[in-house]
């Protein structure tokens, strides 16, 4: 029997060479931590919150979480010894109730209240949430219609049984967390990882099982009203990565990637997260309390910022997974931006630049299309990341052009899609307009 060993031997040599080069290169963990930082693109707020907290474990910096909790516990007495935040209206129809460590969101609907998460313990919900519900009109005619639980940990469902028993409501929880829960939740199938719509207390939630923090963690998007405008907001269920078990962290990574896809698909613009210190919502809350709610609300981060948060979270998760499984090789996700050169297209210049935290993105296809006429052209980015082409005719001040980079993948990188739209302006007069 003759066995052709040549390809194997050759590949061994290649692998040895590659491994030798890796020995002096960054570890996979370092590569992903660095990528998380690069994806921040210099945004101080994202750096202070999303980057710092999502990367707490690969940075060996869980102290940041412990410190947040410790600071939260500096006021009050007894079981309510937390830094309580006064009930705060963050949207036309949403109020935050909680402390600086963990909180809940009360949503007013035409038929009653719906709450996201169920409080830290019975005493807290009896003292604070019940009072908040009464202030928002809780009555037999205006009941608590439902509670969506992000997951089954005590700081999220600790008051569920009290609410079910004393206020009466239907409670929804991921099926994988539902065993032995005294409040007998209605389950959301945790094994079906698809995003779907469901009615929770009459309110439409897009739910997405996101196992990782727990097996039954569920993320959601709801549409809320902000100064009369509909805005979709994300509740990242089981937000923190707090395990060093490979399958749990692998699940968490997969969940973050799917949450990114949900955020993109639903054009999510805001966040509504139980642990408000994690993504800077505590800062937003303080701002609202100090100077009032802005238009748009402080909790409307903007679609691109929410997307960027997810990309940072993805890289932090990849960094942690590759720490626990040092043999895993995960491609780096790069958050890309696309901007029109000179701020906007003109009838004689249609050009856009694609950039990311590593620099300009070269040799990538950008498609320009005129929203009003459907005319389009396609060009490749040059060494400066700039793509330009002719698309005619263009009517200044009337036509809008969308520049779109569809995204690209190599073995090492996933370059995420980017899109920008701008109105065509007159030659040389863009800034004046």
């Amino acid at each position, binding site marked *: 029997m003759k066995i052709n060993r040549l390809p*194997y031997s050759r590949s061994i040599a290649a692998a040895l060479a590659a491994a*030798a080069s890796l020995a002096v290169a960054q570890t996979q963990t370092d590569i992903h931590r660095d990528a998380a930082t690069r994806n921040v693109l210099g945004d101080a707020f994202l750096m202070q919150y999303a980057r710092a907290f999502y990367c707490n474990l690969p940075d060996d910096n869980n102290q940041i979480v412990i410190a947040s909790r410790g600071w939260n516990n500096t006021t009050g007495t007894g079981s309510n010894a937390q830094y309580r935040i006064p009930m705060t209206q963050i949207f036309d129809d949403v109020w935050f109730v909680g402390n600086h460590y963990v909180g809940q969101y009360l949503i007013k609907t035409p038929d009653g209240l719906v709450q996201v998460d169920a409080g*830290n313990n019975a005493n807290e919900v009896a003292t604070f949430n019940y009072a908040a519900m009464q202030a928002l009109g809780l009555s037999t005619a205006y009941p608590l219609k439902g509670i969506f639980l992000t997951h089954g940990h005590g700081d999220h469902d600790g008051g569920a049984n009290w609410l079910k028993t004393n206020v009466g409501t239907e409670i929804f929880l991921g099926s994988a967390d539902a065993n032995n829960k005294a409040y007998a939740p209605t389950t959301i199938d945790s094994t079906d990882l698809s995003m779907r719509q469901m009615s929770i207390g009459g309110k439409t939630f897009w739910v997405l099982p996101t196992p990782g923090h727990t097996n039954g963690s569920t993320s959601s998007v709801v549409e809320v009203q902000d100064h009369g405008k509909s805005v979709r907001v994300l509740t990242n269920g089981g937000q923190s990565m*707090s395990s060093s078990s490979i399958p749990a962290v692998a699940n968490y990574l997969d969940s973050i990637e799917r949450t990114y896809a949900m955020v993109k698909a639903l054009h999510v613009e805001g966040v509504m997260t139980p642990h408000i210190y994690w993504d800077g919502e505590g800062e937003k809350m303080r701002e609202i309390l100090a100077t009032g709610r802005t238009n748009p609300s402080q909790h409307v981060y903007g679609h691109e910022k929410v997307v960027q948060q997810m990309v940072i979270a993805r890289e932090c998760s990849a960094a942690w997974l590759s720490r626990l499984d*040092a043999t895993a090789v995960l491609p780096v996700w790069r958050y890309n931006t696309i901007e029109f050169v000179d701020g906007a297209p003109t009838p004689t210049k249609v050009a856009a630049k694609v950039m990311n935290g590593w620099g300009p993105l070269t040799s990538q296809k950008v498609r320009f299309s005129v929203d009003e006429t459907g005319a389009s052209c396609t060009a490749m980015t040059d060494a400066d990341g700039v793509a330009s082409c002719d698309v005619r005719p263009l009517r200044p001040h009337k036509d809008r052009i969308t520049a779109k980079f569809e995204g690209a993948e190599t073995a090492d990188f996933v370059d995420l899609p980017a899109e920008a739209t701008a109105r065509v302006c007159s030659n040389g007069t863009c800034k004046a307009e």
Partner: protein
Amino acid sequence: MNRPAKWRVALAAACALLASCASEPVAPPTATEYRPAQRSTLVTRRDLNFLVAKWQGGAESTTVLARQQDGAAPRPVARLLQVRQGPGLHVSVHRLPESWTEADRADHEIAALEHLYALVLRQEPQARYCLASGGWPCDAARDGVSHARVLQALADLREQAVVRTPAAVPWRVVEMQGAPARSWDADVVGVRATGHQGPLADIAIYFDRAPHSICAARTRADGVATCRLEDQHGDGHQHDHATAVVATFPGDVRPDRVLLPTTYVLPATAGLPPPAFAQPLSFQPGKP
């Protein structure tokens, strides 16, 4: 030969003998998509294309590892069947009959085993496992072994497969055992890591206790790594110290040898002396 080693050899031999047995066809449901198998530095032939498909049906979850060649339909080479029975999870790892030509058999078999090791590593450490070849049945609920044991069996199969390939980088199994418990503090955990030449010093071990207590330490000269589990989440709720602790060694791939990543489930009450002699983990850039 110690008992675990005997067991591994017997299991590997049985698997090899059974490799020619017939198997029922394995094909994912129509809507299921194959995705590229996760890249791993364990895999030597990165030019060979392997795919993974996963689907769920009730309490059962199936994962298929398949080889794709020249754009042809993927050919399953292994199947993982996960069955949850109450709190227990059982995973049957089936190596499927291959139809590779003699010319490429060795390379493909090695690559398949390397991919399979990487895939099984990402399964639940606390589950019970069985390993079968050629479609021969195995019952993880009845004959199940630990995650570490099934990984060792796969490593042995890979070492058998590369025996005629001297250039192959040797895989070294790392074994962990609970270190002696001499502490009343149930949060102090420790393992002793050994390789083929004895205790392994200065390797990182990660410990995890659900729901969210973790710690990490490097092994001392005697191979013992110990640290005190800390609640990473800090929700203020009491957590069950009777929950098992999982220790993970992340692996270490170097040009001349591979220390294989693996896991070990500590008995729930394992404890060690207080961390007076513990080495808290301090990672240096470039160190795994």
